[in-house]
């Protein structure tokens, strides 16, 4: 497990990610979505720890791009014209935004810090979730180690053809790592019914501010959706530039607060 700690309480990050995701889900307006994506990047860049967790954000970016591309190509199943292509791309962009928000959240939080928040009753599912959340950085680490080992043995590591030779060792390493991790966590008291509350995370002022602003931002988007304002779902036929409400832009900027007050962890 990484020794990183983030100065913000993990629950604050959960609130932030959930609210940003819900706000993004209300709209297919590319300006609002682009804003949330830029904010996620900003928050990630100013809060990211060193290490493989940082690279997992790039993986999420890649998945986001694939999502947009895939959703857009589905247009071939119907009439193909500019309006339909744009409509499909915007729907893809909405999902891509959710992925990027989650990617930022995943990259800046310690999954096991999040795990400690779970009530005792949900410990095991939460543990599974934490392991799942950490699979991206863990796989990246494993891939790096396998690559290095292959290089030392003179095995080809570049190009597309090297990928199959990478897959099996990475999977094996992943399984071994998971077992080792589980055993070590069990030894540390993460096992069934034997959890401790040593050094609980504190809600700092910054964490409260982040949670509050994120919630406010989400409710503003909900209000706009409920009252049909702000061109949240722009029409793509006839094709035109969607309107952008200044109020909704400012509401989106509320989600940028973790980038300003978060900051990387200073050793406690």
């Amino acid at each position, binding site marked *: 497990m990484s020794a990183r700690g983030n100065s913000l309480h993990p629950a604050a990050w959960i609130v932030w990610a959930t609210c940003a995701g819900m706000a993004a889900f209300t709209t297919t307006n590319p300006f609002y979505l682009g*804003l949330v994506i830029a904010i996620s*990047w*900003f928050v990630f860049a100013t809060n990211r720890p060193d290490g493989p967790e940082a690279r997992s954000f790039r993986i999420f970016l890649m998945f986001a791009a694939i999502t947009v591309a895939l959703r857009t190509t589905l247009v071939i199943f119907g009439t193909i014209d500019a309006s339909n292509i744009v409509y499909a791309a915007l729907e893809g962009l909405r999902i891509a935004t959710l992925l990027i928000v989650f990617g930022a959240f995943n990259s800046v939080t310690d999954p096991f810090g999040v795990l400690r928040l779970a009530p005792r009753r949900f410990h095991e599912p939460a543990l599974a979730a934490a392991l799942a959340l950490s699979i991206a950085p863990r796989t990246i680490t494993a891939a790096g180690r396998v690559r290095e080992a292959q290089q030392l043995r003179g095995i080809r590591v570049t190009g597309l053809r090297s990928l199959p030779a990478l897959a099996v060792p990475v999977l094996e390493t992943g399984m071994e790592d998971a077992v080792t991790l589980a055993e070590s966590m069990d030894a540390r008291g993460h096992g069934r019914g034997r959890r401790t509350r040593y050094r609980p995370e504190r809600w700092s002022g910054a964490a409260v501010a982040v949670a509050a602003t994120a919630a406010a931002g989400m409710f503003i988007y909900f209000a*706009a959706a409920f009252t049909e304002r702000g061109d949240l779902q722009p*029409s793509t*036929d006839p094709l035109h530039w969607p309107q*952008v409400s200044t109020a909704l*832009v400012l509401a989106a900027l509320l989600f940028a607060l973790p980038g300003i007050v978060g900051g*990387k962890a200073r050793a406690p």
Partner: protein
Amino acid sequence: MKPGRVRAAAVSLAVSAAVLLPIAGGVTLACAGSRDHAALVIDTGSQSLEYCVALTSSSVTGMELIKLASSQYGLQYSLGFGSKAVCQLAGVGVSGGDCFSDFPNFWAYWHGTGSGGWSWASTGAADTSVQAGDVEGWSWGKGTDASSHNAPPSRSYENVCGSIDSDPGSGGSGGDGSGGSGSGGSGSGDEDQGAGSGDGAGADGGTGSSKPSEDSTTGSGNKENPGSKRDPATTDGGGTESEGAGRTTRTASQSGSGAATDRLSVSDGANESPEGLALAAGGSAGTPGGISSGTVLALAAILILAGAGAMAARKTRFAGRHERKG
């Protein structure tokens, strides 16, 4: 007669028959009234519009018919849900892409029965096939089936298209004549308006029907027809209208016209509710074809955030490299 002559006569008879019969047949068909138009009737609740739309192929979808009417007569339209539903016609309806956000009001879709009656359409307009001689109807109002929703005024194909088909020579005057200006959809700021430069001939119904085939000027591409310009007194129950520089702005008349909730009208591509909500459109009303302040703000914010993120990332990347290998 000698056999050779008989043969020659038969051959020449056959040849002339082969040449003349198609022509005769064609003439016959033309005289019977070959149809290459379809009728489109739109009832906004405060006015009724009719268009005799020239079809560009033997069968088009209901949505394509609307777009053809827009390019030929300047009908304003806005579609939603990926061009599968009608949000706005002639300025009436819902702005944005959720066509049912004003439920229980919505645009109901009807097929003409041929004798003037209407039947409730069972599939959406993107999936129906409209052929020459068909009548399509749209009506704005409440009610989820034929018995509860108001139907468009009773119209048959002949009512709308009149004598357009009986004389093929003049068929071009009413049907096509896409007025040069105003095509349905393009990237500029005016596309929602449909007809950018003051084309009023086809689009106003006033109280009754408009017959573009009779009014239009032939030959030139300009459909300008001062005679049938919008008359504010008759269009809708209390709306005011101002025209300027190719833009026609109509403020909504919520009270005057009973059924129709004239939500808003369109000007230069900005859909705006006249209630003047601060959230609605970040100040996009004023500038024709310009960029609204909200858009500028959003783009600026995106650039600043991306740059700040890049700077922060570069700092930590260098720090990270030094600590990576132990």
